[in-house]
């Protein structure tokens, strides 16, 4: 490892630690450091320990899981497509999760069962992935997978709009719209435990192909001549994204632009090697979302700003900057 890479790993690890501490300490209910320490070490059962264990800890853990997932999936997809403008949404996983969750809200199941919404989202993500998988057939080329993903995603968003269109009362529409904005507020440890196994399984699949992504730098045919099986890589990438991003979208809603921006910021530190970027992007995504979630809590507004709104507000200008930079370099 070169010095630059060691430096960025050290920096991001320290930043993650600092943000995690800040995330445990910041919120409307004042809690001292001693109270946090006694709560996490299983100390006394007080109001403060309840706040720390039931509100702040799941929120912090979810922020880390969500950010890491979006960062990793973004880096994997950009490497796979060899396109710096790709993000997890192109595979159609988000569309499925959103439709599933919206159906849970629409049918009112979510108000009677706490987990109906995330479970609906997960089911939607996995079902849509299965459809894409069947559509793409042999998965022998990168383009086919993406075309199937884009087609399915478009259909899913149309269906989501249809559900909104037919919603019986304006409150459910409002609820759906707010949920879609993406937030980590009011999530419990149950949510974390529900998402974690899917997220970790997805990470494993995505991290598996570091070598293959490096080979794809030379194009699909050369990668195949180096012993890489493109259909196997496509499968792992599709299902890895479905499991991890699907679970995160189901629990947190859409948190935009993280998957796009994080890999792009960290790519130079990885020497532009797509494989090396994967773990780095995982760490960077966790730091970014955790920091953004702390910022959301500190905003001096009446209502709490939604996390997805903040990341998109900051992400969209960065995306534009990226486009202009790309245009300048190709002209």
């Amino acid at each position: 490892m070169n010095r630059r890479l060691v430096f960025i790993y050290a920096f991001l690890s320290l930043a993650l630690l600092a943000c995690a501490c800040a995330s445990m300490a910041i919120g409307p209910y004042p809690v001292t450091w001693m109270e946090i320490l006694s709560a996490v070490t299983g100390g006394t059962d007080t109001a403060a320990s309840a706040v720390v264990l039931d509100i702040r800890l799941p929120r912090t853990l979810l922020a880390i899981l969500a950010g890491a997932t979006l960062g990793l999936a973004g880096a994997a997809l950009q490497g796979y497509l060899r396109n710096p403008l790709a993000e997890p949404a192109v595979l159609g996983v988000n569309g499925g999760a959103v439709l599933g969750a919206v159906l849970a809200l629409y049918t009112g199941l979510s108000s009677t069962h706490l987990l109906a919404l995330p479970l609906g989202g997960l089911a939607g993500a996995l079902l849509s992935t299965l459809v894409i998988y069947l559509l793409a057939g042999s998965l022998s080329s990168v383009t086919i997978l993406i075309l199937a993903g884009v087609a399915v995603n478009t259909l899913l968003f149309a269906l989501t709009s249809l559900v909104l269109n037919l919603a019986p009362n304006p409150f459910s529409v409002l609820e759906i719209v707010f949920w879609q904005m993406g937030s980590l507020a009011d999530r419990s440890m149950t949510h974390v435990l529900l998402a974690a196994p899917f997220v970790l399984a997805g990470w494993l699949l995505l991290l598996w192909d570091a070598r293959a992504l490096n080979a794809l730098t030379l194009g699909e045919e050369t990668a195949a001549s180096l012993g890489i099986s493109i259909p196997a890589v496509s499968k792992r990438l599709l299902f890895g994204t479905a499991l991890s991003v699907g679970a995160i979208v189901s629990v947190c809603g859409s948190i935009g632009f993280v998957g796009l921006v994080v890999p792009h910021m960290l790519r130079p530190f990885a020497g532009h090697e797509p494989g090396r970027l994967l773990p780095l992007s995982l760490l960077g995504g966790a730091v970014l979302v955790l920091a953004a979630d702390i910022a959301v809590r500190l905003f001096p507004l009446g209502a709490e700003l939604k996390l997805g709104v903040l990341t998109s507000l900051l992400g969209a200008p960065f995306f534009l900057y990226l486009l202009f930079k790309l245009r300048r370099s190709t002209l």
Partner: protein
Amino acid sequence: MNPLEAKNLSVKLGGRKIVQDISLSLPKGTITGLIGPNGAGKSTLVKALAGLVPCSGLVKLLGKPAADYSRTEKARLLGYLPQERAVHWPLAAEKVIALGRLPFLGPWQSPGAADRLAVEACMKETSTLTLRDRTFHTLAGGEKALVMIARVLAGEPSIILADEPAAGLDLNHELEIFELFQALARKGASILVVLHDLTAAGRFCDRLLLLDQGRTAAFGAPREVLTAENLRKIYSVEADVLFREGEPSIRLLRRLKK
């Protein structure tokens, strides 16, 4: 037994027969040139031999059917150099060359001492040592071609299939690349190289395979393949072909209407 042998190879793409019934062998320590007009099926034949497009017929590597090898085993044996010199991310030249070591690495394994030695050796062989830290995109055409060849050599393949390795290069670089291939053949590699420069083909290749519309039009020593008759029939050009000390000189006279 030849390192690579192909029997009755045919490739059909989109309902069209691109390669029809080709049989060839690549003996150890020789360079075989694959020549023919544009669209004759040269690149497709190379891809079929490398197992990159579905084909009918039989390809044998070291006497064993190619299908009996695992992907990794095959990748260690056979190096494929594609025509386009594309690298999709701005990697340093050394990183590009190191990609040639992938068949020797596990999923999360980073290159070890043996891999670094192999990369170092082939950078020396291709005189690309001074380019190691340069971004691939900033290299000149000839430098890119050398880096790409170094990438193939890093895998230490005994069979090399090169698709137009010298396309678009100046005279000096073209000679450099063919001399490199000659040196590799002397060390025992079996090389198949696609090329358009017939003079170079006659000079550097031990045997030539002339392809026309997917079929073998002629296969043999350069003197037998590079004839005025073949040039007229296959390339539709009128030319004088003269062999001096085993090396051809070809003077084009005029183009014939097809």
